[in-house]
């Protein structure tokens, strides 16, 4: 099951529709990392609302996506983790260290906008 990736302004939105196997996850990762450069995206949102299980491979891939896209110049937010999934992940020690998370798509977009704003401000201040 391929994950559709939509472009919305300077952001890419990957909306996961159903359970993914390892190959799908790798495909999603490669696809996103490639498109971030091609579309000059500043942010990536991965929406996992539809997932009701998250195994170690999936959470590692999500973490990798976040770190890889950051190196390519885009911030990644994981949105829509279900309460039960969140608790199961934490119990398994899958904490998504260093990855931004938000409640839902709206919150994710908000977060990215704030982040861009803060970055712009910092850049302005650095210029004498």
């Amino acid at each position, binding site marked *: 099951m391929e994950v559709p990736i939509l472009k919305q302004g300077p952001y890419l939105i990957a909306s996961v529709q159903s359970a993914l196997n390892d190959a799908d996850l790798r495909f999603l990762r490669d696809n996103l990392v490639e498109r971030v450069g091609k579309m000059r995206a500043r942010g990536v949102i991965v929406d996992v609302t539809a997932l009701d299980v998250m195994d170690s491979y999936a959470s590692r891939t999500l973490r990798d996506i976040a770190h890889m896209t950051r190196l390519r110049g885009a911030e990644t937010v994981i949105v829509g983790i279900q*309460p039960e999934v969140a608790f199961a992940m*934490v119990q398994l020690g899958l904490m998504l260290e260093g990855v931004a*998370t938000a409640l839902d798509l709206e919150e994710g977009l908000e*977060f990215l906008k704030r982040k861009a704003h803060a970055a712009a401000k910092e850049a302005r201040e650095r210029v004498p």
Partner: protein
Amino acid sequence: MRKAAVAPVKQDAKGALPPLKPEANSVLGAHTAALLRELVAHLRENRTQLRQEWARRMAEARLLTAMSTEETFAEATSVYDNYVEALETGTFEALQAYARNLSERIIPRGVEIHEVVGIVLLLRDVLARSLFSRYQNDFALLNRILDAYEPAANRVAITVAVGFVQERERTIREQQEAIRELSTPVLQVRDRLLILPIIGVIDPQRARQLTEQLLRGIRANRAKVVVIDITGVAAMDSNVANHLVQTVEASRLLGATVIVTGLSPEIAQTLVNIGVDLTKMTTVGDLQGGIEQAERLLGYKVAVAVSAQDQQED
């Protein structure tokens, strides 16, 4: 199955008893049925006298002291009638329903299981005595009557006792459920700000339920910041502490920041001594500080209104 009517009553694993009705076409069954009919006729005939005898012995044994004499007598009458009916028909559904209904009424008044079993056994004894005196001249007949009477009477006692216990267990379960739900309120203080005051002992089960309720609350209220106040928690072991850390992490995965407030000196010492990793937790001294911190995170600014300031200056 042929001897079901005279065999000692056995209860199967699920508590459901097989029907006791004697088989009409078997000689023994028909015989037992006739004896039971005779027995029931005898009990109906002497209803008033036997019931009084029973009530007297109940008072003597100081059973059901929580109820007044009139109430006891009224209940005794319906128990007696239900008892005789169960003996007559060999079916216990009506008695079961009555026992449940009775339990529902008397449990809140503090009636204990030994009282309930006690009065049913007393009734069994009273009726058996009356059978003894009636058939004292024909020992063989008395034996056969008792063969018919005893299993049925035992079944009645079991039915009533089981009904009482089931009813009480149901009450306890309901109360436990209510306490559990009351014990973990998730409250919204401001838009997108929740507080979760925890009071009392946290056992693993409660901790788990707390987490579930908090995570659901975060979803439902679209919370950004959560203040968990543990001022009312006296002690914490490493399991619960780790669970707390997990709760904080899980909340972060939902995009919410957690602030823990009100750690007592004892808990702070325990946490440090057992080496729980607290680097991922934001802690603030008290609830007020926690809420102020949360408001800062959410961009709220609380100011004293001008009129109030004027009043203070006056």
